[in-house]
Structure formats: C-alpha cells, structure tokens
C-alpha cells in the first residue's frame, strides 16, 4: 500500500484521539494551547478595519475588558486556522470525500448556529476547543464553568434541532 492510499484510510477513533493528543502536547510546549476563537476575532477585527469601522467596534468591544488582547497575537492563530482548513481539504481530497455540498433545508440553522456561536464567543472569550482541550486540561476555573454551560447548551440545542427536524 502506498503512502497516498495509507493516508486516505479512515483513522480509528482511538488512534486518532492519541495522535491528536500528542500533537496538542507538542503544540503546548512549543507554541500554545489549541484554540481558534482568537483567530476568528482577529479576522473580524481586520474585516472591520478594512471597512474603516474598527474604532467604533473597539469602543464597543473594549468595554468587555478582555477584548483588548484581540489586536495582538491573533495573526498566528488565524494562520493556524487557515492551514487547518487546508489540512482538512487535503485529507478530504485524497480520500475522495471532497465535494461542494449544499443542504438548503438546513441553511437557516447554519446561520442561526453561527451567530449564536459568535455571541457566545464574546462571553466565554474562547471557543469550545479552547475550553475543553486547553483550559479544562489545566484545571482552569473559567473552563469548568464554561464546560458546564456548553453541556447544558448542547442539550437544549440538540432538543430544539430534534424537534425541528421531527
């Protein structure tokens, strides 16, 4: 079996989990814990700067205190996020799973879900990855509170989704 065929094989969940953990540990030592929210916020800030609205935005956002950090250090996370998408693209391409797919029936859910995740991100100042796979592993108080909220929220959201989908 060639390298390409081997890479195209699905990874067993246990092997996948151990490999992801190893990457996260190396990443924690060399670079920083895994989280994407800073990158998304940085991108948002750049977009608003492009429109010339950043001063208005920072005035609104800086009131939250921990928003000031967005301007700094978000660049590297945005690069990480971009290459994360590229890594998934390559994986999907070589395994033949890539394809432009649209499910028009669930597009409203995609919009509402994305908006709610964005609003939540302002409150918790990270994403679910930063909470579960980074702060929670360091016994952070914020992560435990956020994790409790995430479990409750996912339960409520799943019930809403189940009801809508019948």
């Amino acid at each position, binding site marked *: 079996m060639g390298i390409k065929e081997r890479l195209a094989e699905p990874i067993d*969940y*246990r092997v996948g989990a*151990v490999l*992801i*953990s190893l*990457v*996260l540990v190396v990443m*924690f*030592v060399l670079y920083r814990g895994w989280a*994407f929210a800073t990158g*998304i916020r940085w991108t*948002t800030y750049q*977009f608003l700067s492009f429109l010339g609205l950043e001063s208005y935005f920072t005035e*609104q956002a800086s009131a*939250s205190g921990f928003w000031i950090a967005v301007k700094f250090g978000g660049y*590297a996370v945005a*690069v*990480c996020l*971009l*290459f994360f998408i*590229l*890594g998934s*693209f390559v994986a*999907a391409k070589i395994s033949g799973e890539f*394809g432009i797919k*649209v499910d028009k029936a669930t*597009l409203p*859910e*995609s*919009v509402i*879900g*994305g908006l*709610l*995740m*964005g*609003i*939540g991100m*302002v*409150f*918790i*100042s990270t994403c*679910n990855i930063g909470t579960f*796979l*980074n*702060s929670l592993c*360091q*016994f*952070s*108080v*914020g992560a435990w*509170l*956020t994790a409790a*909220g*995430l*479990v409750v*929220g*996912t*339960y*409520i959201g*799943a019930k809403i989704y189940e009801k809508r989908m019948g």
Partner: protein
Amino acid sequence: MELLKLVIGPAIFGFILGFLVQRSRFCMTGAIRDYILFGIDRNLKMVLIVIGICTFAFTLILTISPPGIDRPLGPGTFGPTMQPAGWFSIVGGIIFGIGMAIAGGCVTSTYSRIGEGSINYLTTGICMPLGIIMGSFVWKALVLPIGQKTTFMPGTGLETPYGLIWAAPFPSMPQLGNALLDIPPIFIGIPLAAIYLLWYYRLEKNA
C-alpha cells in the same frame, strides 16, 4: 524567527490537526449530542482520551517548567492559558452550546467541513464573525449593566467587578492572580486524568 513563530509553526500545527480531525471524524458537539440523545459514545470516547492525556501532560509541564522561560515558538512564557471566569462563563457556554448543536458542529468540525466543501458549514463560518460583532453589542448593552452590580465569590479576595475573576488554580501560576489550591498542578492532574481515562475504559468495556 518571526516568520517561524507567526507563520510556519502555526501553519504546520494547523495542517496536521486539520488532517487528523478530518480523517478521524473528531467532533466535540457530536460527543455531547450523540451521547445524550442517542447513546452513541464514539466521539465521547475520543474526547475523553484526548482530555485524559492532555490533563496529565499539561499539568506535568506546568509543574516542571521553570518560571520565566519563553516557549520556543509561542507568545509569552510557560504558564496557564488565561480564561476569564464568572457567571457569564455559564451563560456564554449555554449560548455557544445551543449554537453549535443547531449548526451541527463546533468550531473544529465547522472548519473541517469547510475543507470538505460544505456550503452549509461555510455559512456557519461566515456567520461566526457577524455573531462576534453582535455579541460585543449584547455585552455592552446587557452584560455591563448587570455585571457592575455582581461579584463572583464575594469575601474571598478573588472578587472583581462584572463578576469576573482571574483566579489561578495553582500557586505556581501567580501571573493570573490569587491561587485556589496550594499544591503543584500535577497533584490534581493525575487523579483527574485517571477519572477521564477510567470513564473511557468503562464506555469501551460496555460497548
């Protein structure tokens, strides 16, 4: 060096993680949702393995790393990741949780599926920054007026306005403020990692 720190390093980690997440179908939303609604525990087992290994490794690194040493590629020194804590953590968690369950994927799987070519997840990815803009208005209009009247853990010396605390779990991480536990991080890391991995073992055994 700046190029290595800001572009090459993050790019390599991002690419490897993107590849692994796509190939192993790692999903945090799926872990919680599938287990609660359908009793499917594949993703939950994955999350438990990752959290178990990382809890042990991270607390060990925080215990043995000398203070004041910079990470080779990263911003700042070896220290815990800062995450604000307060009542808004729970509220934000619930909002985020509802969002990711409705969208059908957390931040990771959303961006992974964008790589697979899904327009739905691309829509979610585009709406996230819009949500952040909306969220900053919600924060100012709603949270700040409430926050100024609340404190978290009053009387402990950890309280601050807005119910925000910057409490370090361990004394070896003084850069965050006051410490909650006067023990080395690994003392908490070992039992916690054991609980996660034992939970995984039980799920695996009952399968």
